[in-house]
């Protein structure tokens, strides 16, 4: 196991590459989904409030 993570002495480089790539892609995915959700909430509130006024 430890040997696997050591990557023949190149562990830092290999895991640094895949790790950062994974972190960026996961963060992007989470942000995109969240942005969509909050936007729907915000606009929904606006639409409802306007329809109450009318």
């Amino acid at each position, binding site marked *: 196991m430890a040997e696997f993570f050591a990557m*023949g002495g190149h562990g830092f*480089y290999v895991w640094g590459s895949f790790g*950062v790539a994974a972190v960026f892609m996961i963060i992007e995915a989470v942000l995109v989904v969240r*942005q969509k959700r909050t936007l729907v909430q915000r606009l929904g509130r606006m639409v409802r409030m306007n329809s109450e006024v009318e």
Partner: protein
Amino acid sequence: MSINWFKYSAPSSFYPLAGKVAPWFAFTAAILFVVGLYLSFFVAPTDYKQGEGYRIMFIHVPAAWMSMFIYIIMACWAAAGMIWRTRLSSMMASALAPTGAIFTFIALWTGALWGKPMWGTWWVWDARLTSELILLFLYIGFMALESAIDDPRRAARASGLLALVGVINVPIIYYSVQWWNTLHQGASIKMSESGGMETSMTEIMLWTLLIMTFACWFYTIAIALTRVRSIILERESNNVWVKEMLQGER
């Protein structure tokens, strides 16, 4: 992808369509990533020359390819938006830019981490590396311009124009950098290693690379579709169909 984009070029009909297909792309991407990562770490054999370090290739090369593809696609969308004045096109362009920038950054980052053990340095001013760096600047310029303009309609038109100017310039930049580097053959380290790699690439390595690349493709499509849905909502929030849809939701 056999979707007829033009049929769905109206945001109101594209919005639900994108919502339906995006999860499937995301799902496929996840499976491909699992398979690709398994192959990269447990199946692909150790490289006789570079040892285990070469496994960085399985993320580096797909990211580098994606960074270039996405820019071209983005510019095509922007051009379509300027020429046919379809609203959806410029929205697609803005939806793609952040993902492209992220892949560019990943390519640079993984390349640097690969270069240190292989070449003994994080960075050399090689043509390929330099043009990738310039590509990052172009992405960032596009996004900075878009975020600096408050009015979303104006932002879309301005950044679309910039992408269009960029598309004419990118090949010029690419070849000039290529030429710049070959004229000065003084670099202490050259990229000739990669040429050596091609021959040593086994079939399984090639397959792994392809699967990782497809995973990135599907990831990009899923992300772009989701993001374009947000953009559609934001820019079309005045339209009746958005209001009716939001009224229906909850």
